[in-house]
């Protein structure tokens, strides 16, 4: 097994007018190829910052971080990952197929390769038939699926997802979660997934990273014992509930560290 992401003593401090804000402190984490890793924690725990650091959208101020053995900057320049943001961030003047084509145009894929990849990834996220639609003609869930297709269109083995379903309702979310698991199984990608929903984290992940705020640090790393094949009703099994309870304990422990919850 090779480490896709490896963080050692990673720290990140934002200087502000009111003094420094510690967003990450002493984060140690290894993500193996094929892992589905969820980052869970309350707002301000640094989970999004950590994801953005992997993506070289933020620069760590201490420690080391390697992606596929490279620095984060080299990995970004090598187009090593696809990033899915909280909002779909589709370009409104482009049709769905043109939005998926955006990274392919930038990376210089030929017209034929673009067409083939657009068709394949839209099929993967169940959006075949919507190629010519503009984003505003699609529902929020469909827009977010299009943004996932866009992140899958080029050959990145690592998928970074920052609360991609946070703005969607429970029913759509359940559906997209099971779709995402199937997609993960079919594509064999490594996925880093930020969420603040315990059931979502437990349902999706092979590894759950529990984080706590001020300063952002990892309080627990839970290896899931659930099988790769996960029907939605696995969420009622004792095994699932046991992992969920451990996540909840981890979150609570993180909070009591602050002294604001006894």
């Amino acid at each position, binding site marked *: 097994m090779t480490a896709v992401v490896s963080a050692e003593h990673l720290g990140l401090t934002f200087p502000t007018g009111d003094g420094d804000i510690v967003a990450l402190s002493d984060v140690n984490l290894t993500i193996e190829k094929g892992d589905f890793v969820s980052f869970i924690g309350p707002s301000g725990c640094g989970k999004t910052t950590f994801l953005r650091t992997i*993506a*070289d*959208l933020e620069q760590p101020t201490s420690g080391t971080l390697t992606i596929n053995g490279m620095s984060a900057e080299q990995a*970004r*320049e090598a*187009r090593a*990952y*696809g*990033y899915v*943001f*909280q*909002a779909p*961030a589709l*370009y*409104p*003047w*482009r*049709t769905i197929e043109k939005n998926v084509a*955006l*990274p392919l*145009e*930038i*990376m210089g894929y030929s017209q034929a390769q673009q067409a083939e990849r657009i068709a394949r990834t839209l099929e993967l996220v169940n959006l075949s038939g919507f190629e010519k639609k*503009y984003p*505003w003609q699609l529902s929020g869930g469909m827009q977010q699926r299009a943004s996932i297709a866009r992140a899958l269109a080029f050959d990145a083995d690592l998928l970074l997802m920052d609360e991609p379903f946070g703005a969607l309702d429970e029913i759509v979310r359940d559906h997209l979660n099971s779709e995402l698991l199937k997609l993960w199984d079919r594509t064999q990608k490594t996925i880093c997934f930020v969420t603040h929903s315990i059931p979502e984290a437990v349902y999706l992940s092979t590894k759950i990273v529990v984080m706590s705020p001020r300063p952002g640090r990892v309080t627990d790393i839970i290896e899931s014992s659930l099988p790769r094949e996960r029907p939605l009703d696995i969420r009622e099994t004792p095994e699932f509930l046991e992992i969920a309870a451990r996540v909840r304990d981890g979150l609570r422990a993180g909070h009591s560290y602050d002294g604001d919850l006894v």
Partner: protein
Amino acid sequence: MTRILPVLTILLAILVFWYAAAVWMNAPWQNTLNNRAGLENVPFTSFAQQTWAQDKPVLPAPHQVVGEIWNATMGLEFTSRRSLAYHGWITLSATLMGFAFGTALGVGLAVAIIHNDASDRSLMPWIIASQTIPILAVAPMVVVGLGAVGLTGLVPKALISMYLSFFPVVVGMVKGLRSPENIQLDLMRTYDASSWQVFWKLRWPAAMPFLFASMKVGIAISLIGAVVAELSNAAGGGLGVRLLTGSYNGQTIQIWAALFIAAGLAAVLVAIVGSAERVVNRRMGVRA
């Protein structure tokens, strides 16, 4: 019909008001004329008609202006020095050239400003200062100055138009090119896109609504710039010259006719920019 009716009502109200105002404003001179001619107790209907048919009225009646426009466009050879079509064309060509220069300059400055913090700080104060100077003061200096070095005709007038029309384009495009959200810019960074790609695939399309809004303002003031520039060079012709000679000679009908041609031109030009905007919007999938 429900949309036409209010428009017609307003138009009718304006015409009624205008004719009434013409009677009122032309009455003193008409009384003088009638007294000289020994006419007394002229019935009101005849008197009103007299006030609407003066040679040099204080306020010409609408049909006099329309008649003058017709005579001075359709009734004359295009090349005639009295043809409003000829003068309108001179003004239009200066307007279009100045608008093209102004838009190009405005976009160029906006691109420099958004890509470089130093140019933002060093250019913006000058750009704003340029618009605080009355154009009426600058135009003669530019037209006469360039004339002294042998540059006459279209270009000096176009430069004045440019001077006015680049400003809304700079301001609008700086705003427009900066309008992409952080998340859209971050996305480009995750693709390791070059700044050239970020510009053409994100900033430029995002700025389109701002560009068209700026160009609508720009083309209208571009026409004003051309007319003002023409005031400084009576030999060059143009609607501005017709306004000037009309006011020298008390030819109020001629002034009003030139004003209406100028206003009509501006309306048509803004409408053309508006339809170009609709074409672009359709191609960019903007929700109708």
